[in-house]
């Protein structure tokens, strides 16, 4: 009897120790499998970020030895020495504030339309998503043609309808709204995320409203919008981040013109880095943008408690 308990105890201790060795090995394997992602982050993201933070405090001009200049680059940005910093910040903010709400509304509206049970739904979904797959450079070239003031399709239509023509991207005042208009063409990605959110809403909520005698507007206001608010929130943040980083349109279509009317922040950064080869200064510009985007995201998160509804939160 006694010997049996002994063996059992021994077995237990053995299995305990082997269990912990398995755990240790699993732990090790876990790190191993996560290593590519972690290493990738450290080598390609975190390392360059630290390097650029340091470079932003130097006068680095590529291939020359960087000299530490403290916060001078940042001072030059904010004290108005740089003729383009506030201009580009203004242009970008204008674009973001105009484009993000519009993109959200249009994508949301399209998602609702595509959530109806109509014939040819797959076709419509494909059609509205398709522009998103077109490389931005290619679509920029196409829009360049459409926006042409004399021969462009848009002005030809305006002329035919006896509406006032526009100079589109060729006028300082209309260039940003025009690019916002163009950005609405590629809301397909946002739309798909909304569609997924809409699919998540159980039908019986809508049935409940119908039984209570509510109409489509009530459904939208009291069911659809509150229940997709996390999706709206997500899309708004992504929209802000994307809007602050617009580059291809000014690079391909306007070169920042006319009269700096489309001097987007990233384009301005690119020009400092690669045309004027002020790499250190460009790093400072990048860090300012990082902080601006972080601030915006932070503010959005703070307000989100007031309007974003998560299921199971019991509010």
């Amino acid at each position, binding site marked *: 009897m006694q010997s049996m308990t002994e063996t059992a105890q021994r077995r237990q201790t053995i299995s305990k120790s082997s269990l912990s060795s398995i755990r240790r090995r699993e732990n090790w394997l876990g790190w*191993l499998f996560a*290593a*590519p992602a972690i*290493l990738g982050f450290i*080598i390609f993201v975190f390392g360059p970020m630290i390097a650029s933070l340091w470079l932003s405090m130097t006068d680095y*001009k*590529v*291939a*020359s030895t960087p000299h530490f200049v403290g916060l001078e680059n940042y001072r030059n940005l904010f004290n108005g*020495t740089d*003729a*383009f910093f506030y201009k580009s910040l203004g242009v970008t903010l204008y674009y973001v504030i105009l484009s993000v709400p519009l993109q959200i509304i249009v994508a949301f509206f399209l998602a609702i339309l595509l959530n109806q049970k109509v014939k040819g739904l797959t076709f419509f979904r494909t059609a509205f998503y398709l522009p998103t797959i077109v490389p931005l450079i290619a679509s920029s070239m196409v829009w360049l043609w459409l926006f*042409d*003031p*004399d*021969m462009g399709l848009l002005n030809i239509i305006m002329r035919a309808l006896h509406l006032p023509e526009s*100079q589109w991207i*060729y006028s*300082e005042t209309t260039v940003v709204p025009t690019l916002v208009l163009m950005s609405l063409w590629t809301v397909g990605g946002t739309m798909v995320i909304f569609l997924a959110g809409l699919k998540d809403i159980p039908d019986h909520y809508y049935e409940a409203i119908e039984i209570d005698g509510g109409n489509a507007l009530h459904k939208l206001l009291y069911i659809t919008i509150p229940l997709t608010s996390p999706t709206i929130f997500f899309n708004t943040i992504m929209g802000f981040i994307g809007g602050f980083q617009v580059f291809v349109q000014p690079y391909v279509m306007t070169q*920042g*013109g*006319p*009269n*700096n009317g489309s001097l987007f922040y990233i384009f301005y950064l690119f*020009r400092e*880095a*690669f*045309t*004027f*080869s002020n*790499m250190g200064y460009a790093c400072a510009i990048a860090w300012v943008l990082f902080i601006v985007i972080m601030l915006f995201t932070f503010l959005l998160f703070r307000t989100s408690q007031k309007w974003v509804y998560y299921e199971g939160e019991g509010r």
Partner: protein
Amino acid sequence: MRVKLLLWTLCSALLIGLLAGCSSDNSGSAQTVDGKQKVTLTYASWGSTNEKKVQEQIARQFTEKYPWIEVKYMHIPGDYVTKLTTMFAANQAPDVFPIYKAQGLQWAEQGKLYNLNEFLKEDKELTPDTLIPNAILYWDKDKVAGIKVTEEAFGLYYNADMFKEAGLPLPPTQAEQAWTWDQFLDTAKKLTIDNNGNNATSPAFDPSNVKQYGVRFDTWMWHLMVPSNGTSVISEKKDKLNLEDPQMIEAVQKMADLITVHHVAPSPTQSKNIPAPAVALQSRKVAMDLDGQWVQLDLGQSGMNYGVGVLPKLKESKTTLFGEPEVISATTKHPKEAWMFYKFLLDAKSGLDMHASGLWMPVSKEWYTDPALIQQWATVKPGHPEGYTDAIMKQTLNNGVNSYEYYLKNSEKISAIINPALDQVWLGKKTVQQAFSEISAKANAEFKGTYPEE
């Protein structure tokens, strides 16, 4: 266990691959050719596929002549400066490459480029005297950033058939007979025709429906007529920009007036509908083109009947020179061999096809003076029209003025201030004087001095 071993091997292989990808190729081979240590140079350039072919050919010919020097050619068709900047940052800059003048001077100042004066001082074949004037780019006294690899000069290109049909005299090719601005404007007016067939001299002329423009030019050449008005973009004392100088303002305003007052030239927006200059001339969208000589390659290939005259003059007949420099990077491990290849590149014999095609112009003086050499490029048709030797070749030698970017420090940044201001001028919303006075303080704040002329 075996699976684990396999996984482990896979992971380490990936990791090693990753690290190997980051490190550069340091396989310094001690090969010898003809008793000389083998040397490999990298040569990068932009250019069309045609130019690419010629560049490769030049690199090959060079190795045939000097078998121990291999030249690896790298063609960078777009985003040239971005690519080079990245290569410099990675410490892998090509040994020899052409670069845009403003960047070249700036990069030399920053220590990225080899001071070519070290070679120029000692070389027996290539000395400043053997070159045409204005070919060497100095960034400081006795400090040479580069030498123009080909010269570029502006002229008045035209469709000869359109002149014949309108019964107008052709633009003169001799500097002494250069058109005055009024003669030029009058011709441009007669060659500007609206959809009803009225030309710009007629009171019934409808400027909003122009079928054929008298002339076209690129607005980035806003300073084209400045030297002809006896002034410069940089003040005479070289202490500021000449943005308040009445002569300079007048010279730029005359260009703007072609668009906004006389409607004989398309605005920048209207230009978007007009094909590339050579096609525009051929398809009769425009009759004259104030352009650089490089346009001859396309004009020649189009098979059209074109010609060239000297630019019209304001006070004196001048042409603006615009050639881009060839440079050697400061990080080159083989400066001596790089200089040998450099000289080979500058020799018009090496890329004679390109010179004969009309795209390039030599930088050695003898190619402008020795009749035997001249006939190898400057009279070769169809890339060189009748009158080329007077209107472009002689004009370059005798009345060529370097564009202001060769001398203005920080010129990229200053252009980034001036060009947007001029956007308003081309739209007719502001006069040149208004536009310049608005940005004068801002632009002069970026004025960081000038580069020496020699």
